[in-house]
């Protein structure tokens, strides 16, 4: 039972595969991205399926930012300025991001922010 108390390092798990039980939340679904399509259209089917989930994630991030910035200045900056500043993102990524923003009906700045999130959090 030492596995279940800090520092959680006494027991190595075994027999967990194929995944089942409380640590398994399901399989990731498969999609095809056709690189022969124009970049703006490549993610359409995925985004149509995941529109609500994408909206929910962006809302969680916006709610988190609002705790520190109740006036919403940061979100305003992301929505209005980020598309101008980062319009120089390389092709085909910027075109793909623009397509995703259009299909998800999300401000372009917020989709750009989501796509650079990993870089931002390396501090």
């Amino acid at each position, binding site marked *: 039972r030492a*596995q*279940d108390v*800090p*520092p*959680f*390092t006494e*027991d*190595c*798990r*075994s*027999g*967990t*595969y194929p*995944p089942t039980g*409380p*640590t*398994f*939340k*399901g*399989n*990731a*679904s*498969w*999609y*095809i*991205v*056709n*690189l*022969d399509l124009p970049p703006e259209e490549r*993610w359409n089917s*995925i*985004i149509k399926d*995941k529109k609500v*989930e*994408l909206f*929910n*994630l962006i809302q*969680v*991030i916006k*709610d*988190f930012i609002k705790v520190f910035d109740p006036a919403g200045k940061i979100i305003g900056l992301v929505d209005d300025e980020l598309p101008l*500043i*980062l319009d*120089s*993102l*390389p092709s085909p*990524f910027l075109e*793909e*991001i623009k397509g*995703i923003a259009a299909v*998800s009906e999300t401000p372009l700045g917020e989709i750009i922010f*989501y*796509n*650079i999130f*990993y*870089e*931002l*959090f*390396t*501090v």
Partner: protein
Amino acid sequence: CTAIIAEDKTGRLFHARNLDFGLFLGWDIKHSTWMVSQSLKPLTVNIDFQRNNRTIFKSVTFAGYVGMLTGVKPGIFTVTMNERFNLDGGFVGIIEWIFGIRNSVWIGFLIRSVLENATSYEEAKNELVETKLISPAYFMLGGNKSGEACVITRARETCLDIWELDLKQGMWYLVETNYDHWNKPLFVDDRRTPAMKCMNKITQEKISVPTIYDVLSTKPVLNKLTTFTALMNVAEGTLETYLRDCPNPCVPW
């Protein structure tokens, strides 16, 4: 994040990872979990990137995120990326980009370009070693031949270290978390030691996709930040991704 590349006794290479993300980005008291980690799980998708109806590479990512952090080019190489936290971090690169210094590459975009265009393990390695980056990173790269695996420790502008698999010295696996391998991890965030302990217990004779999944299911390698576990076999070109949860009691990172 925790990534493992291992070679079995027959020379087959396995590459697997836990993707951990969302630290300090809001704690959901009701569900006892990180809000962003929880919200990323339903966005996790496996993608088969095709050209002329042929698979170019396979990757697991989040819907709407066009860069890649994990992927397999069937029969050629596998790649994953872990965050490297540093004061000279991604925000510096982003500020440079905003002010017009644009000779660096966004990490997710680089990995996707490598998966799309590199035709060999060596070519992929060169790209990951030499390209200037927006933010520091650890790249784990596995090939399809015995001994072809390495961890590349990157600063934004330079490559700090390349840590290779060394079967002659008995080093049949590499484990990378979010710390330089030549330094000890932070004592409150040591996923490396338990992962290595479990790998040593399994031994090279018994290493396989199921036993690597066991390692990645052991706390604190599995923790509250773990969004998914991805398992890749380069020779077979397979990618399996499982969404994860870490019910209490579980370490928050």
